[in-house]
């Protein structure tokens, strides 16, 4: 299943949910749509499933136009965020639903359906739950049944909407590994939506970062982590410390900042904004720096240091507790930035323009 989405837009009343999406997905790929809520990722997934319709753009799957096909004819396995299991049917009947509703001519015999359901129950490791109702299952079990119900129709494409959103951390990790296994065993093209970076990067071959109805960046974990394409991606990836700096010949400079660890950038001279993760910031005593230590909190392994500046918002640094010289409230310190993303300052406030978005995407590819 190769999927091509181009120039897709969608609005709900006055809100633009998708503002021009271009995306290609290769057969057998496992792709994550990652973004904060309201970024349009679920809407995009629902359009691919046929549960929503775009205002403009095209959706081509294996060279056929899927916008001409109803959801029921697309043969897509869709796993809903809250599972949407049929409450009045047992697990067995839920799994068999997709086969039971086939037109008589295509419907397999009763024995074939029963065999298929038994096979799925075994494959999903839920054979002992076969005769229970959804209300009697735990969240993780429901998720398995929901996935099994989608797999029963042998989908050409598997779509999952926040598949682990409602589960606790231990079960999420478990199911993540299990889903990866299912993807490899079935070989179907899979797209899932998540707002959890860890989940996206651990599970997916490729991650599509979405923000405000646009694709902000497409890439692998390291790429997106080290080279965010836009300030939005940088912030979303955890670079919560934003500092104004001055660029001169590709070098960044700022009062109270030690930026010698950053490589030279091919950016024009002038003011710029630096985005850094708290964990990439070290603090060092420096009597003339405007930065002051406001608070030091230890989590045992790490020290979280709140830093204040007379003219800037508060910043945070996180460093290992062992090997760090003792810090005290009120100490004047220099911030040594080990890694950061830099964007010319003018782009900081303005919403990213679509043209430059596309250019960035090309680079990311």
């Amino acid at each position, binding site marked *: 299943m190769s999927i091509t989405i181009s120039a897709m837009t969608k609005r709900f009343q006055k809100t633009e949910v998708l503002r021009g999406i271009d995306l290609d997905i290769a057969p057998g790929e496992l792709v994550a749509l990652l973004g904060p809520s309201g970024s349009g990722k679920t809407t995009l997934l629902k359009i691919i499933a046929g*549960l929503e319709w775009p205002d403009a753009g095209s959706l081509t799957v294996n060279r056929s136009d899927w916008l001409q096909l109803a959801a029921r004819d697309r*043969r897509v396995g869709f796993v*809903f965020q809250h599972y949407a299991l049929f409450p009045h049917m047992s697990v067995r009947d839920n799994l068999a639903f997709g086969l039971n*509703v*086939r037109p008589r001519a295509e419907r397999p015999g009763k024995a074939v359906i029963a065999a298929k359901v038994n096979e799925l129950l075994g494959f999903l490791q839920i054979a002992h739950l076969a005769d229970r109702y959804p209300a009697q299952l735990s969240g993780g079990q429901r998720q398995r049944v929901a996935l099994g119900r989608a797999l029963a129709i042998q989908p050409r494409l598997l779509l999952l909407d926040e598949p682990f959103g409602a589960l606790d951390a231990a079960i999420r990790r478990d199911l993540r590994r299990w889903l990866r296994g299912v993807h490899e065993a079935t070989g179907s093209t899979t797209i899932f939506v998540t707002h959890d970076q860890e989940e996206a990067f651990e599970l997916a071959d490729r991650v599509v970062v979405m923000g405000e109805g646009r694709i902000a960046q497409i890439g692998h974990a390291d790429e997106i982590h080290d080279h965010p394409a836009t300030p939005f991606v940088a912030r979303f990836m955890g670079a919560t410390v934003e500092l104004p700096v001055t660029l001169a010949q590709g070098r960044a400079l700022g009062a109270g900042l030690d930026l010698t660890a950053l490589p030279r950038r091919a950016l024009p001279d002038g003011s710029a904004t630096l985005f850094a993760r708290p964990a990439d910031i070290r603090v060092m005593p420096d009597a003339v720096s405007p930065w002051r230590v406001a608070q030091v909190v230890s989590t045992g392994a790490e020290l979280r240091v709140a830093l204040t500046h007379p003219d800037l918002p508060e910043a945070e640094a996180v460093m290992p507790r062992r090997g760090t010289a003792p810090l005290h409230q009120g100490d004047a310190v220099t911030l040594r930035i080990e890694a950061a993303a830099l964007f010319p300052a003018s782009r900081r406030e303005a919403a990213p323009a679509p043209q430059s978005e596309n250019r960035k995407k090309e680079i990311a590819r």
Partner: protein
Amino acid sequence: MITAAAPIRARRVLPGFTLSLGTTLLYLVLIVLIPIAALILKGAEIGPARFWAIVSSDRAVAAFRITLIAAAIATIFNAVYGLLMAWVLTRYDFPGKRLLDALMDVPFALPTAVAGLSLTALFSANGWFGAVLHPAGIPVVYTIWGIALAMAFTSVPFVVRTVQPVLEDLDRSLEAAAETLGARPWQIFAKVVFPAILPAWLAGCTTAFARSLGEFGAIVFIAGNLPFQTEIAALLAYIRLEEFDYNGAAAIALVLLGFALVLLVASNLLQNWAARHREALR
């Protein structure tokens, strides 16, 4: 901030338990239980042989038969129409929807005698509908159809108002899931939506049926009240009372009470059956 040491007493979060429960029970006894008990005692003093003679008299049997058949017709009609109405009110947006929704309560609010009068006026031979139906050989007024019509009018909100909230709360992603699994629209309705609203729909239908059995005001105007033909049980009980035949009235009323109780039990059993997947949790 020093407080005197006092023994700790667990307190109810909601106040007024004793008062509210006491008031409720008193009210229930005065308004519901005592009248029913009086009716049963009145019936008991007749004695079984006399009781049987009254309720198995030709006129009484005919009245029960007419009441039950007309109520059944009205309920079947309301089961279909009420479901459709609830569906339209929850699933579509159209101008005038709120007005239509409000109109659904008119049969509740309207005095039943007014309903009976207006239906009679409409369906009598020179009324708007009757002028068409009568020449076509479909008399409504003074027939069992008129009785069923009056019953349907007064009891339709029961079906609409029990199904509507359940349909509103139904998770739309269930239908979306069924669609992605390849189900056609009628399969989605039959296999996903209908089972979900079945308990509420059954409850609505049985209450509508029970209400139809007891309907009086709307019917007496349109039925013509001919003994053996269009005389309903509630009216017969009333006539007996008018004749100072308290025993006769009580016996007939007891049978109606019996019907109502049987319906209530049947309704609960059906609902439990239809909601058995929820029961399994307990």
